[in-house]
């Protein structure tokens, strides 16, 4: 959270991070927000259907099921492709419900025909290239259940061998 005190009319973002660990099936979490407004405390609620077999979801299967943009060398990794397969027998429309706007953008098709796969791309924003982060994006389909799918997106940076040498040399000279 960027601000802990809000003037009248001001707003702030509260980021809720959920680690799915080895949970199974539907999980609901209700973090409590304590403020100087006093009791009763207000809560936000997150719901997730944690799957142990992400290759057996319906009506879509996303591959890979986690996106890792970690970079351990100098070669810039700011883009990753993934596929979405429509495993149902009806055309599925896709809608982006939520994504970390400050970190990346995602190119998705509007719809996928039955049995077809679509190639999609996630591209990092310039400011996110130098950051370590774990975020996600959520899609909603137009099936009767309005099924949603959340893709985790991770980036870790490790100094390149050349940078490490530079740092070591500089520290010896001090």
């Amino acid at each position: 959270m960027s601000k802990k005190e809000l003037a009248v009319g001001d707003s702030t973002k509260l980021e809720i991070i959920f680690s799915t660990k080895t949970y199974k099936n539907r999980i609901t979490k209700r973090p409590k927000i304590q403020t100087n407004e006093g009791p009763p405390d207000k809560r936000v609620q997150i719901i997730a259907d944690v799957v142990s077999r992400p290759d057996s979801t319906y009506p879509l299967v996303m591959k890979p099921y986690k996106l890792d943009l970690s970079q351990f060398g100098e070669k810039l990794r700011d883009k990753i492709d993934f596929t979405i397969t429509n495993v149902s027998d009806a055309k599925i429309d896709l809608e982006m419900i939520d994504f970390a706007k400050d970190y990346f953008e995602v190119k998705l098709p509007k719809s996928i025909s039955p049995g077809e796969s679509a190639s999609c791309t996630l591209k990092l924003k310039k400011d996110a290239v130098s950051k370590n982060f774990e975020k996600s994006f959520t899609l909603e389909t137009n099936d009767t259940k309005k099924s949603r799918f959340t893709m985790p997106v991770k980036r870790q940076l490790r100094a390149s061998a050349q940078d490490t040498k530079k740092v070591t040399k500089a520290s010896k000279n001090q």
Partner: protein
Amino acid sequence: MKKITLIAAALLLMLIASQVSSAPRMTMGESVFNFGYVPQNSKISHDFWLHSTGDDSLKIIKIVPG
């Protein structure tokens, strides 16, 4: 005597009213988010917006995981 009681009651009401009107208040546009299907052993996140809509500044004291 009655007049004094009435004036005291009116003053008390005014005091209560002034305290009520300067209270902090938090509102949220959305308070529930459904991620849908999520793989195990991963971290996902969602941003909720908190708004200060009272008559006094809002202090966020603590977020308690639940």
